[in-house]
């Protein structure tokens, strides 16, 4: 089971790295998906290995997937709106929205 945790950790910090360094809003969003996904794996793994008779981790993962779908949809809607306004989705240009 530790190995599952190790790969989810790697995935998580890959997401963190992307979140910190990417310049594109969509890339940042993708990084967030990675982070969420790694957490989902953790829930499922803990549930399966430590408490196989219960289902909390399972359902938590299920709902987290639903939530991330929502979040992505809204985020993409916002990004497209931004794009429509300033023709760009680079983070450093976002302050042009103030104009």
């Amino acid at each position, binding site marked *: 089971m530790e190995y599952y945790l190790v790969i989810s950790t790697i995935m998580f910090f890959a997401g963190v790295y992307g979140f*910190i360094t990417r310049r594109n809003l969509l890339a*940042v969003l993708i990084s967030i998906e990675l982070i969420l996904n790694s957490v989902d794996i953790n829930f499922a793994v803990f549930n399966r290995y430590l408490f196989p008779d219960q289902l909390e981790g399972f359902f938590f993962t299920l709902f987290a997937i639903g939530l991330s779908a929502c979040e992505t949809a809204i985020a993409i809607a916002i990004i497209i709106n931004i794009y429509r306004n300033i023709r760009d989705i680079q983070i450093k240009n976002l*302050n042009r929205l103030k104009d």
Partner: protein
Amino acid sequence: MELTPIILLLPLLSFLLTGLAGTKLKPAAAGGIGTLSLALSALLAYLTAGRYFSTPRVEGVYEKIVPFNFEWLRFTENLHIDLGVLLDPISVMMLVVITTVSLMVHIYSLGYMKGEKGFQRYYAFLSLFTFSMLGLVVATNIFQMYIFWELVGVSSYLLIGFYYTKPEAVAAAKKAFIVTRFADLGFLTGILLLSYHTHTFDFGILTSGDSGVFAGAAGTTFLGCSVISWALSLIFVGGAGKSALFPLHIWLPDAMEGPTPVSALIHAATMVVAGVFLVARLFPVYHAEAPEVLTGIAVVGAVTSLYAAIVACVQTDIKRVLAFSTISQIGFMMVGLGVSGMGGHDGLGYMASLFHLFTHAMFKALLFLGAGAIIHAVHSNEMARMGGLYKYMPVTHLTFLVACLAISGIPPFSGFFSKDEILAATFQFNPVLGTILSFTAALTAFYMFRLYYRIFWNRPAHYDHAPHEAPGSMSFPLIFLAAITLVAGFIPFGQFVSSDGVAYTIHLDWKIAGGSVAIAGAAIGLATLLYRKENPTAGKLAAAFPLLYRAACKRFYIDEIYLFVTKKLIFNGISRPVAWFDRHIIDGALNGAASLTEKLSLAIRGLQSGHVQQYALLTLGGTLLIVLGILLV
């Protein structure tokens, strides 16, 4: 009796109405409201007095009545501040005096202030002043008195500074306020000391003659005097400030910058006697607990009256002459209280002092209003610009003469009776003091008639347009007050007011009375000689004693001493270093803190960039640090 709160509330209402409505009210309406409410108040006050003095005495004494009392602030079991109305002979008398004088001033002002800018404001302040003064005299406890005392202070400040565009008026108002504030500090300290040791503010308990009240203070001494003596002395300092006793008198002459009716109301008739009233109110306490303070009061009063009388002889501004004569007369009253004993013939001073308060209020108001009429006619305060006015203003002339005779102590005018009683009481106490007062009385007669002759006789000044008699609204109060002055001496005052409340019949001591009349007559004669016609003798006399004359002109440099002490000593010695400390150390520290904060915030501003990614990085870094810290420790 139950109506007494209304006497107070009417002026308050009128103040609120005229003050709040402001210029929305027509001037005539504001004046009408003020005058009408005061007239009602006066009427009620007369009714109250009539009812009060017609109720039968209990054990020979008029009962103290508290028709209205309301507990306002409770500190401890015994110590609480009330607001209420206390009726006893002196407060009833004061009610009558204040409402009468105030009513006269209100009526008079209708004519005098006509067309002035801020007429409504003027009436609002007058009402406020009257209200405060009435509240002061009916106070049931010393703290209520203090509250109204301060109200009187503030309303007098407003009235003196009425012509707020004139720098002298503003300075005078400030001076009056600050000097009396200094004195009030003493008053407050005295109240606190007294109440701390007696556990009560209530006049009824304090003056009940029960020495058990003061048992708590027994044995507590400071610098060789008992603590009660100190408290009473401090309270007297407060009274001295309001009553303009030497050396706290400096505000009163300057306060003449206010409108003349205001001078009449504040400086002559009501506010300055607040100190006298205060001492009279606490007289049983003074007498029983601190007779040495009473002696001090008498000495201060005598010094004040002599000093003010000398200064008054050389002033050329008619209002200043009257101001100094007021100070002098207040000194008389204080002496009267100071030399008084308790009960019977010993209590003559007390009775005489309050009698003098009563008569003085009337004739001094008359003098001021007369002076106002004169100023109204010739548009100047300076004697040099007057003279020969008797032809032009017969009513003012006659009423002024009545007042001058009264203040000089010529029978049958009211001043004779009251002043004579004070002299008699003083001689009985101490012949030296009595002689000083007699001399002062002579001076009084002299300067009053100097004033009278310089205004109405002497060499007629050149007038741009012939002076005219004052309008009816102004001459009516003059006549009314003159009438009171004529008859007031015959009021059997001792029947109503005396130190222990038991009726006392006034006996004229003809030895003293005759002497004083003779002295006054001589002084008047001298004044007639010098000032009846234009006469170089007066100038020569002044030249013969240049030092004395100059010193008197400069009011014996008291103001200069004050200026020296405040400007040179206090400002240079204390305020400058304090200001330096404030500017450099305290401000410096604050500025340093501010600039440090500014620099720090500039330095950390980069952290608040609004870049989410940077935040995430920092959050992660912080979390890692914490985790590492937990792991390693």
